């Protein structure tokens, strides 16, 4: 390894590396967000209580079967193959000419959605039964219960798993180079193709990938902390709405007349 080469490649190709990293981060971020939304919706649909009889039961059964097929199919086939089938396949078989970036986001989203729906289902199952009962007892229906009580708690609980998906997506977008999306792996390949310094070029890519994934995990850890909030409750620390006239007087006195 030649340090001079390394620096030379990194500086000379900096715009290309950064452009590639941007595309990678963009695709994986949008893909993770859309995938999480898909997973959340599927999780809510799959936990709808099935009535004992009637048309509703049949409809829910059919929807569940369709969703199961979706999940099993996308979890059970490699993303690189899905990319080929969806991008080139749809172009050849149906004549649909997709934009590469949109195709990439689409592939990453539905893939993440398949994984996330199972994570969300696990998250919903893990919520205490009492939360559902309390929500039902004050008259909420399934959707109200889900969106006001259960899902906010599920989001907190599945945040680590979601972060995991995000990190996996940052790395796995590299397979999208097969459909020539100009993400980090693809651009590095062309840089290396120009200078024939494969080791140094891909070493730079390695470092960039690591910086991205590491930053993302740190940020998510911070968000987890923020959501959890403090363990103890500080009385009267942020209680303006319950301030009594006596409190107000005391506060004014303490501040020597300045409110």
């Amino acid at each position, binding site marked *: 390894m030649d340090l001079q080469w390394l620096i030379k490649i990194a500086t000379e190709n900096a715009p290309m590396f950064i452009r590639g990293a941007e595309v990678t981060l963009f695709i994986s971020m949008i893909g993770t967000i859309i995938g999480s939304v898909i997973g959340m919706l599927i999780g809510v649909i799959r936990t709808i209580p099935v009535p004992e009889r009637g048309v509703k039961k049949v409809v829910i059964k059919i929807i569940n079967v369709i969703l199961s097929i979706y999940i099993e199919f996308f979890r059970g086939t490699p993303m690189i193959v899905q990319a080929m089938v969806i991008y080139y396949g749809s172009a050849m078989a149906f004549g649909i000419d997709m934009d590469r970036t949109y195709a990439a986001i689409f592939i990453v989203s539905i893939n993440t959605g398949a994984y996330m729906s199972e994570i969300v289902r696990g998250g919903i199952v893990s919520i*205490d039964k*009492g*939360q559902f*009962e*309390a*929500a*039902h*007892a*004050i*008259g*909420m*229906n399934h959707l*109200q219960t889900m969106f*006001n*009580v259960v899902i*906010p*708690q599920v989001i*907190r609980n599945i945040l680590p798993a979601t972060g995991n998906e995000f990190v996996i997506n940052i790395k796995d977008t590299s397979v999208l180079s097969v459909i020539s999306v100009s993400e980090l792996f693809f651009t590095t390949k062309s840089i290396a193709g120009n200078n024939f310094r494969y080791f140094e070029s891909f070493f730079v890519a390695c470092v960039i990938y690591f910086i991205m994934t590491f930053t993302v995990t740190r940020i998510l850890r911070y968000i987890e902390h923020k959501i959890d*909030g*403090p*363990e*103890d*409750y500080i*009385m*009267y620390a*942020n*209680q303006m*709405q*319950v301030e009594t006239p006596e409190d107000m007087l005391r506060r004014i006195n303490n501040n020597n007349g300045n409110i």
Partner: protein
Amino acid sequence: MEKVIDIQHLSKSFGAHEVLKDIDFSVSKGEVVCIIGSSGSGKSTLLRCVNLLEKPSGGQIIYHGKNILNDEHDPVEYRAKLGMVFQQFNLFNNHNVLGNCTVGQIKVLKRSKEEAKKTAMKYLQVVGMEAFVNAKPKQLSGGQKQRVAIARALSMEPEVMLFDEPTSALDPEMVGEVLIVMKSLAESGLTMLVVTHEMAFAEEVADRVVFMDKGVIAEEGTPVQIFNNPTQERTKEFLKRTLKKI
């Protein structure tokens, strides 16, 4: 007096196990009814059936003259008319104290935010928890949680309040604060249906005491009748066991 809830021939089985057998029982407006009995006698199941958290296997629940077990009746609307307080509190963990008391009003009763907040503050004052509006459930003690749970149920301004062993999961020293709140509610004329192991509370506060044993109502009457002159052998047996001094 006007009957709010009238239960006729109610039964409930879990598989082959029959938990409630042909229960006839009613609650009138303004009445405080305490249900006592040993564990497994079906008293919690009865309360959960009244709230439709458990679907009864047979019988009728008449609410203001309408059978709410009919298929065309909307259980969601009916449930909003009943307030429920659980043994395990079941406060919504993602909401703070105020949010717990307002979310139902806003989403189910479609009240405005300000109105919901005003109502919530009114009932939080009733239970003495108005200083904790921004606290999260995990920051509260058991007794405080249960008082918030009571305020949450009251905020929906229900016709009947159901209490499912509200003090059974509390430390002994916290039982008192919850019972005081419940007693003041009873005195304010609220219709209450209370499943409890607190015999002293039942004796003092109840208008009527129902003793359940093995899925049937063994005896019911005024507290004086039940606690001083029980007629049934199993009532005597149960009271001897629970009131026994150590």
